[in-house]
């Protein structure tokens, strides 16, 4: 086995060891490790020739596609840090991310390239797009593939270097760039593939966006073990996905509660032949126990992993499948090569049954938030040894007598919708920028399919005749699709606490699902 120190080694070593093996299947195309390695080399040579230096940030504004995977590895091979950006991100936020990170170059696709005409990013020197190009400052992805230099480059990084920035919703409403070193990502991928017992004959289907770390890691981990990824854009056409899973003999299905709920709702799901499937993973939010039971009934041979994680350290814990019957509500224990514990408000470790904040210690813990020293200082604090920093998760947990973890609540009001973190403040900021909105509060309400559905409660200025639809339409021009409110309720005024603040607890408790669009 080759030693992996850099994230790009996952691809490079597999290209040496499993040269002609299928690495990636997407839209009817099958690419071997060698194919992908050559394509990524062409990108890397192009980037170096374009003046990209070690540590420069490169944005990948693409949906799940072969080009996105090649761009990620091309950036890493050139010594740059990649940033996968959700393909439904709107102009303002894209501009914020590109400027906050001082990105030098962006990869995009023809269907979304026009957005770059709307934004001003002084550091952004070049754009590479698939399909026809915008103008002369835009390079053609296809041209690089057809005439690029495919020779491998010497490594420019060591494992302490920045490999990626993943932007995540912050409670302040401002997206935070989670900085991950090669060492962080290699460590996380190693720990996860260890407990999932991944093997080179694993065939993993991924329909989660690569801009979501859970989706991204499916590629990284599969390449690490020399497996195969079936890459899909989403679970929009479930029967097509199921046919593909059967045809490709998929062994691993990474899910979130929304995907599992949709799967279990399908007619004839009990007649589907999933005999090749070895494991299903679930993270982002807990699966309802009824869904766990139904999955076990339908697919008794499949190992089902309940997991919990944060972008700031990738993964925190997993429940060994054999423990699922004993403790269906637990998210398990720390993964291999990681320590987790719970502290009270004084920072002292607490015992079983006591509620406190979960702390994570391990080489998977991020380097910090990009250009946000204050935010970084709040969650990365002194650890066991001088200079060491551990991650304060902001999540309240308790353990049972055997040390298994149980999620209690978040310390802030972040909503988890379809498995992705959504900041109520970010949506409220958009609502307040709409003329006619007097007060706005966004809460999460329980939803069988989404986990939590986003509900916006607003009071209007007198004389305003905004409608619910107009409000969501305005949001859709400023927010990613997964952040759009499912419900909007226009109220005469929002309930207040004794201190005069908007009472979100009251809203969340009483609002439920009224105000449907």
């Amino acid at each position, binding site marked *: 086995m080759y030693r992996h120190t850099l994230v790009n080694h996952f691809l490079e070593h597999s290209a040496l060891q499993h040269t002609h093996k299928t690495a990636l299947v997407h839209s009817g195309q099958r690419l071997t490790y060698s194919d992908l390695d050559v394509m990524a080399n062409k990108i890397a040579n192009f980037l170096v020739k374009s003046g990209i230096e070690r540590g420069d940030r490169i944005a990948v504004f693409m*949906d799940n596609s072969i080009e996105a995977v090649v761009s990620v590895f091309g950036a890493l091979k050139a010594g740059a840090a990649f940033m996968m950006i959700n*393909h*439904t991100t709107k102009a303002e936020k894209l501009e914020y991310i590109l400027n906050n990170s001082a990105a030098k170059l962006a990869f995009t696709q023809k*269907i979304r390239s026009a957005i770059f005409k709307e934004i001003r990013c002084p550091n952004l020197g070049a754009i590479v797009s698939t399909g026809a190009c915008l103008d002369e400052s835009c390079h053609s992805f296809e041209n690089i593939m057809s005439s690029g230099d495919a020779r491998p480059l010497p490594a420019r990084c060591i494992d302490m270097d920045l490999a990626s920035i993943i932007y995540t919703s912050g409670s302040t409403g401002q997206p935070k760039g989670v900085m991950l070193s090669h060492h962080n990502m290699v460590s996380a991928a190693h720990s996860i593939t260890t407990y999932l017992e991944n093997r080179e004959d694993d065939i993993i289907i991924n329909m989660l966006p690569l801009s979501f770390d859970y989706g991204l890691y499916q590629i990284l981990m599969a390449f690490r073990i020399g497996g195969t990824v079936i890459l899909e*854009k*989403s*679970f*929009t*056409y*479930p*029967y*097509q996905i199921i046919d593909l899973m059967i045809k490709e003999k998929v062994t691993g299905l990474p899910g979130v509660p*929304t*995907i599992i709920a*949709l799967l279990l709702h*399908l*007619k*004839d799901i009990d007649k589907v032949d999933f005999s090749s499937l070895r494991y299903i993973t679930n993270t982002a939010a807990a699966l309802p126990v009824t869904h766990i039971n139904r999955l076990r009934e339908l697919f008794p041979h499949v190992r089902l992993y309940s997991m919990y994680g944060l972008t700031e350290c990738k993964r925190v814990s997993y429940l060994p499948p054999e423990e699922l019957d004993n403790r269906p509500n637990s998210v398990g224990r720390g993964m291999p090569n990681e320590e987790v514990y719970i502290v009270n408000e004084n920072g002292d470790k607490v015992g079983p049954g006591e509620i406190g904040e979960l702390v994570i210690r391990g080489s998977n813990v991020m380097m910090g938030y990009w250009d946000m020293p204050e935010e970084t200082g709040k969650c990365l604090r002194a650890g066991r040894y001088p200079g060491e920093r551990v991650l304060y998760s902001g999540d309240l947990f308790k353990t049972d007598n055997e040390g298994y973890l149980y999620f209690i609540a978040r310390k802030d009001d972040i909503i988890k919708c379809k498995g992705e973190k959504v900041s109520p403040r970010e949506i409220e900021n958009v609502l307040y920028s709409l003329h006619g909105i007097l007060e706005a509060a966004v809460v999460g309400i329980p939803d069988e*399919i*989404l986990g939590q559905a986003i509900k916006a409660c607003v009071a209007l200025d007198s004389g305003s005749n905004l409608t619910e*639809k*107009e409000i*969501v*339409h305005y949001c*859709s021009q400023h927010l990613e*699709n997964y952040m759009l409110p499912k419900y909007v309720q226009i109220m005469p005024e929002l309930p207040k606490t004794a201190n005069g603040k908007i009472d979100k607890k009251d809203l969340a408790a009483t609002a439920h699902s009224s105000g449907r*669009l």
Partner: protein
Amino acid sequence: MSQMPEIRNFIVENFLYGQDDGFDDNVSLLEKGIIDSTGVLELVSFVEEKYGISVEDEELIPENFDSVVNLSAYITKKTSNGK
């Protein structure tokens, strides 16, 4: 393809919140980010109720649902086949 305006209207009302951005009737609704896994189920319910057809599992594929033109052709085929 008489259903096209109705389909377009449903998509605009439900997924674009009443504001038609002039998207092409041939554009992939998935790639354009107009519908997702929960959106497509709303589209199925709409088609079943509006045109009195039953969408079979194996018919829920992009060839039938992923653009206004495809969906209209699918409905035409279904309704002319005696449902």
